[in-house]
């Protein structure tokens, strides 16, 4: 049972992990994107639709990434170029994504696709406990194992990452050195949206293997919170994402085990957990926030 929960944690946490990585990229540059939930939604539908049309889930992942990137591009235009309030823009895009996926998604409900199937890693997959928990999953789970350290490396060890973080910490320093803050934030927001789109695609073409309206169910918002108490660090965020995956998988594992619990009492667990962790750790982790982002978080006012 423990192995089942842990294995479910890795599987269920993967979509949140991708979204959290994307959100950390965008927030490190000083842009908070509540539209991550929307990017996951369009990513889920985009991934599903492209997979249905092409029969190839890998192309589907690209479709999901493109959909998430496009939606986040609108966010970038609104907040970076037009100076709109970041929270209002993000929520509007979430709402827009709800409508768009409902409009374009009806044809894909209950349509069969050639989804990702679990691939057991040779040798490692046969290990006791570790094998089923980590190495008997769909390919996107393995890609995520690499993606988290890769995003960390790009953010903290490359020139591009340095520029991106400078945009989030002291954007005037970028200007002094002749870089465009606007361009950096555009790239960060769009890349972040693409990652969230991959997270959504994981939900529809590897996790649930189906498309239905509102299937993201708040995972994008959890990812936004996760980035705060993951202190904008991709490695910590990965750990947090799997923790929430555990909370999510608890429900299905208990039900499969024949325990009679009201499903919604379990569905609420990840959200309560997020709020409790924010309440306990929030004050401390906010010290690690990028300065320009803190301005957004502290004074969210705009008219």
């Amino acid at each position, binding site marked *: 049972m423990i192995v089942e929960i842990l294995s479910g944690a890795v599987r269920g946490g993967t979509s949140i992990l991708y979204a959290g990585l994307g959100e950390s990229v965008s927030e490190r540059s000083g842009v908070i994107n509540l539209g991550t939930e929307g990017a996951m939604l369009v990513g889920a539908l985009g991934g599903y639709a492209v997979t249905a049309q092409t029969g190839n889930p890998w192309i589907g992942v690209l479709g999901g990434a493109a959909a998430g990137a496009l939606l986040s591009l609108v966010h970038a235009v609104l907040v970076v170029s037009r*100076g*709109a309030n970041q929270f209002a823009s993000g929520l509007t895009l979430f709402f827009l994504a709800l*409508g768009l996926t409902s409009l374009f998604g009806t044809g894909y409900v209950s349509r069969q696709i050639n989804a990702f199937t679990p691939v057991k890693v040779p040798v490692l997959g046969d290990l006791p406990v570790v094998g089923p928990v980590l190495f008997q999953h769909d390919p996107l789970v393995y890609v995520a194992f690499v993606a988290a350290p890769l995003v960390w490396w790009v953010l903290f060890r490359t020139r591009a990452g340095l520029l991106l973080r400078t945009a989030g910490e002291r954007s005037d320093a970028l200007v002094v050195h002749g870089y465009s803050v606007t361009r950096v934030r555009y790239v960060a927001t769009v890349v972040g949206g693409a990652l969230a789109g991959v997270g959504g695609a994981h939900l529809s073409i590897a996790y649930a293997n189906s498309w239905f309206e509102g299937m993201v169910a708040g995972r994008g918002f*959890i990812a936004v919170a996760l980035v705060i108490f993951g202190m904008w660090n991709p490695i910590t965020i990965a750990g947090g994402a799997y923790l929430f995956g555990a909370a999510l998988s608890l429900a299905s594992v208990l039900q499969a085990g024949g325990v009679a619990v009201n499903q919604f009492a379990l569905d609420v667990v990840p959200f309560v957990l997020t709020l409790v962790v924010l309440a306990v750790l929030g004050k401390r982790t906010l010290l690690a926030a990028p300065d320009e982002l803190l301005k957004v*978080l502290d004074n969210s006012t705009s008219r």
Partner: protein
Amino acid sequence: MSEQVSTGLGAGLSAALLDGERWRRNRALAVRWALALLGGLIVFGAFVLANGASPLDVYTDIWTGTLTQPSQVQQILVRAAPLVLAGLAVVIPARAGMVNVGGEGQLIIGAVAAAGVAQALTTAPTGLLVIAMPVAAAAAGAAWAGIAALMRVVVNVNEAVTTLLLNYVALYVMLFLILGPWKDPAALGQSTSVGLADGAKLPLLAGTAVHVGVLVSLGAAIVVWFALSRTSWGFRLSVVGGNAEAARRTGMPVVVVLLTALLIGGALAGLAGFVQYAGSEYKLRPTFGLSLGYVAFLASWLARHRPVPLLLASLALAAIAVSGNSLQIGSGLPAASVNVLMGLILVAVLGWTGARKAAQS
């Protein structure tokens, strides 16, 4: 449709014809609305076309099926009532510089509280029930917003993030209740709570299908307008919203101001839940109040957080929402597709009509 909006705006304009500055602002608002609406309609038409339906048919449907039908116009008023209340729940905290995205959850919890009171007091006189339900709903909404307010004030976690998460908690609490302890054993198919007794429903205005909740929300908008623009409390809100640090230095109780703004907002959203419950739906169901809180958020931003324009914004969005139903019947598009239209309009308003801030901020 644009004709209706412009007559509505005309009324708003003449009411606000107090000085030139204000008139100019209102005229700018009217132009913004027209352009945003037009842009939204065009892009939405393109999406409809891409989905294989004819935009012309869709707009004809909306016109003949909704906007020119007296019964549908009454529906629009009924739909707008909770929108106005939940919109005020965004307006007040926004004046103090906060983003309340939790209208959805505060509204649901308000309705849950009202339903709980209705179930607990089945034998009590209806007079008591009629008072106890809105009080409980407002208190529950305020408490729900209070969680986010406390987290903002004590641990400095941004209220936009917490109120969003609380929306899902509220939804699951309601679902838990109606699929568990509150489930109506007589309900067929979809699980619901037990229906509200006739005597406790909001009375209708004579000869119409419009309930008194419409008047309640109109009254609330006027009270909030007065409180924001004519009282020292309203002044304190805007000082804190303008520059919290300066307010703190002049000795203003910033924490108290922030707390009360969110609590009052939550109470209004809770009241919106009561109006939706006792005025329209009469029972809790899995889709109760679906996305009313989010639409109200859009309405408040469209109105730039001002109570009187909020009335117009709520009416316009309610009209779009109601026409979603005729869209489903007429063109076979899902009712939620009109969310696209609402979202597009707000994108246009946020991006191209605001008093622009510095792009780098």
